[in-house]
């Protein structure tokens, strides 16, 4: 311990470490009534880091070539020591990232933390959500299995419903008329290069907004002000005098949430490794043999079912586009200063109704 203290003092003399710790950790105060839902952002940062690390490890042996991709994944899974662990961590982690991101967004919605002046936090978060879906979709193709090949065929094909440019857009996405080696090349580039870089940049922007506006106060608990009192004439940092310090108090909550996450995540990896794989995931892609009942991943099931229930694909796509646009622009639409959801019954009804609709469509999509 004495050595650590000496090292800390040595650093402090050179870079003012104590001042940084005071400003960013021990002196960084959070609302007194902050709850565990606020730690989901930290959990997501851990998941993203883990995805990058496991992704880089997979890159060591994965071959992005239509002839060799499936073989290389099989080699990683069956022959390399702990290859199965790294691949499963990556595959399960991607699903977990979407699940935790949805929980993070739902809690933000419920506690109305998206309201002004945090519109940019919401917008960057929403963009991150669509990009995480994009990185999952592009990564899904890379094992070049029957499942990935045909799920990508179905997913890319839905863009054909867009009038005029639709068919060309599908061809552009695939790099050819049908899903093939050209699709693998561009999905690989998007998955390992473009989208992670944009996600990293947007995470930076999201955290920057969080730091500049300050942490929002949960709209629950005794003596809590539930209205926003921000005047748009001047920039104001929302400080929390008398609040609880980030370190060690809330850092411990972050650590607890991360541990709970790892318990669930590793339980799936070790005890239900095939939860996310159908038998088609273990058969190499065959462009001449369509398997029966190809379904997208669970988080696209609601979109998939929406496309099916509308009489025209264009209408189904338009409804989804409208719903996504509404959600993205929610901070600009919902301008009421009241943040307590229990004082806004209409919002509460829409929140639970919307969530149940999404769950219902997903379940319907799964069994249809």
């Amino acid at each position, binding site marked *: 311990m004495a050595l650590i203290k000496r090292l800390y003092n040595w650093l402090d003399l050179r870079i003012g470490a104590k001042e940084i710790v005071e400003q960013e950790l021990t002196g960084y105060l959070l609302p007194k009534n902050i709850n565990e839902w606020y730690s989901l952002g930290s959990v997501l940062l851990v998941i993203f880091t883990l995805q990058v690390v496991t992704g880089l*490890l997979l890159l*060591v042996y994965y071959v992005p070539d239509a002839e060799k991709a499936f073989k290389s994944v099989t080699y990683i899974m069956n022959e*390399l*020591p*702990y290859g199965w*662990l*790294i691949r499963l961590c990556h595959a399960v982690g991607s699903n977990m990232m979407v699940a935790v991101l949805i929980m993070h967004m739902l809690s933000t919605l419920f506690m109305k933390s998206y309201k002004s002046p945090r519109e940019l936090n919401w917008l960057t978060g929403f963009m991150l959500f669509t990009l995480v879906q994009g990185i999952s979709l592009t990564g899904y193709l890379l094992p070049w299995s029957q499942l990935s090949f045909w799920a990508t065929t179905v997913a890319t094909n839905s863009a054909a419903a867009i009038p005029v440019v639709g068919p060309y857009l599908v061809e552009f996405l695939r790099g050819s008329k049908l899903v093939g080696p050209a699709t693998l090349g561009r999905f690989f580039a998007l998955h390992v290069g473009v989208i992670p870089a944009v996600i990293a940049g947007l995470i930076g922007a999201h955290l920057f907004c969080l730091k500049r506006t300050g942490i929002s106060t949960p709209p629950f608990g005794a003596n809590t002000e539930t209205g926003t009192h921000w005047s748009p004439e001047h920039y104001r940092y929302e400080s929390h005098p008398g609040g609880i310090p980030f370190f060690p108090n809330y850092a411990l909550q972050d650590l607890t949430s991360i541990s709970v996450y790892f318990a669930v995540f590793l339980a799936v990896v070790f005890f239900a490794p095939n939860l996310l794989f159908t038998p088609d995931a273990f058969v190499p892609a065959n462009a001449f043999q369509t398997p029966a009942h190809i379904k997208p991943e669970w988080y696209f099931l609601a979109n998939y079912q929406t496309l099916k229930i509308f009489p025209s694909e264009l209408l189904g796509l338009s409804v989804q586009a409208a719903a996504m646009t509404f959600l993205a622009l929610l901070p600009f639409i919902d301008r009421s200063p009241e943040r307590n959801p229990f004082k806004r019954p209409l919002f509460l009804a829409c929140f639970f109704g919307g969530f149940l609709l999404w769950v219902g469509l997903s379940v319907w999509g799964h069994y249809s």
Partner: protein
Amino acid sequence: MENDGRRKFLGVCLAGASAAAAAAVVYPVFRYLAPRSDQQGSNKIEFAESDLPAGEAKFFEYAGSSAVLVKTSAGAVVALSAVCTHLGCIVQWEKDKQDFLCPCHAGRYTPDGTVVSGPPPRPLAKIPVSVANGKITVG
């Protein structure tokens, strides 16, 4: 004092748990990235004796590295590592001079791997070889 003891005990437990968790991450990653011993090539390789005329050399992969088989003009068959002992370049067979030359720094070896000139500090490593029934068996 009692509190200090408890603090120290919990600190040691935390450090131990962290070390165990770190090892549980580092060990699989190390094993995943470590070169595989079963990919080092087969232990025994056979060639037909007729494939190797006198005065010629034949390069091949052996135990994950480069090796060379040479039949001297006197008819003796020698198997050597083709990795130069100086800085690890692969030696070339010079048929006209009947010796090995390392093109990197001009190290020269006799057909049995002995250093003739140049910077190599040691002779080329010998590999067991036997000739029987018209077959050359290396390893």
